[in-house]
């Protein structure tokens, strides 16, 4: 039990996918203008990551391993992720058309979000079991959500701040992302 607890929180804080592993930077910078959008995006990513971890583990252990098809794992994982993203897209369009419009191109882009593929690979690499895999996927998604919501909150304030012309927009955004990443380095050695 303790091990799973540690796995979950280390995926959120210590090995945060965005701020420590530097995966999924594209939506991190793209969908962080408004907190509301960031929350919508992180919900979608949590869902996709958790399910993708679970399904890719099943695919890997029950299809690829028995048939000796390990060289196909990238294709198979992408297939799983793309399907899940399609599903999420349908659900969001039904539930909240406004969030669907706000997320725009970034929603289908979760398909190529390296954080999602990354969590699937890491699960295999670390040799996690089914439960650990799912928990790790959930933690990774929540970690991504935490990072992007924090960042969106800061960016909303940055819009009102008096920033030099050369640093406006993405430039100051990248500086802030770097500082946030440094702050998260402080969690190293927590567990």
């Amino acid at each position, binding site marked *: 039990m303790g091990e799973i607890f540690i796995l979950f929180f280390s995926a959120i804080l210590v090995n945060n996918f965005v701020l420590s592993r530097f995966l999924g930077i594209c939506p991190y910078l793209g969908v962080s203008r408004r907190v509301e959008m960031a929350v919508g995006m992180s919900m979608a990513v949590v869902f996709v990551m958790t399910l993708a971890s679970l399904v890719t583990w099943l695919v890997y252990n029950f299809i690829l391993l028995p048939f*000796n*098809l390990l060289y196909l794992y990238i*294709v198979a994982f992408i*297939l*799983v992720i793309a*399907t899940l993203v399609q599903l999420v897209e*349908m659900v969001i*369009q*039904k539930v909240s058309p406004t969030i669907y419009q706000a997320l725009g191109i970034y929603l289908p882009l979760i398909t190529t979000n390296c954080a999602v593929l990354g969590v699937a690979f890491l699960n295999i690499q670390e040799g996690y079991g089914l439960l650990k895999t799912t928990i790790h996927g959930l933690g990774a998604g929540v970690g991504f959500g935490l990072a992007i919501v924090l960042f969106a909150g800061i960016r909303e304030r940055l819009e009102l701040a*008096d920033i030099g012309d050369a640093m406006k927009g993405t430039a100051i955004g990248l500086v802030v992302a770097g500082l946030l990443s440094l702050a998260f380095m402080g969690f190293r050695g927590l567990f």
Partner: protein
Amino acid sequence: MLPAILSLGGLGLLFAFGLGLAARKFAVKVDPRIEKIAEILPGVNCGACGFPNCQAVAAALIEGKIESDSCVLVEEEALRNIAEILGQEVKVKEKKVARLICQGGKDQAKEKYVYQGVRECRVANLLFGGEKACAYGCLGLGTCVQECPFGAIALDENNLPLINEDKCTGCRKCVEVCPKEVLTLIPKPKKVWIACNSRAKGAQVKKVCQEGCIGCGLCLKACKPKAITLENNLARIDYQKCTNCGDCVEKCPTKAITCCL
């Protein structure tokens, strides 16, 4: 070879079936008229109508929740097209534009202190109502310029917002954001307006601004259709009666009435 094709193909088929089922379950019925109307609408999502975006407006229009003239931006031609799609009668509304009711730029109005904070009127207004000695005047920090979704406002050399009436759509965004309420919507064809917002007494106005309304009442007498009244030391034009003659503009001793004929 064969197991590879079969297993990947099988996975693909399985997922395809799953997605097919989900698509049926989560199908969103989109009224084709929504797309059509959304295309006619300006699509800038300015929010002046109270809806988050133009798609939502189109949906509300079809459900009959709002009138066809709720969008301030659509031109008469477009309004007619929308009414045609909805099968309603056309209602033509009067076009309004935002105008500045203050002339207290840095040459005319005195300042009570030097403000060096954030270039944002709402912030400056928190510090004793801003740097201008006149409590009612434009602060000239350009919050309206930033707010305008159409780029219709720019600060002139006198530090006052200059409104391009060809670009202004009357969306009210600047009116709502201005902490001093010196922007107001006036019917576009009416070319005369009181360019002062000060409700202070005449002597007080003279002390802080060269071109403020001192409430002398000369315009009341000059106005033939009797469109001007005096309220709280400030002249007010009734645009139902105003004929654009411009007599009041000539009579005003402080040039507080503007016309752009």
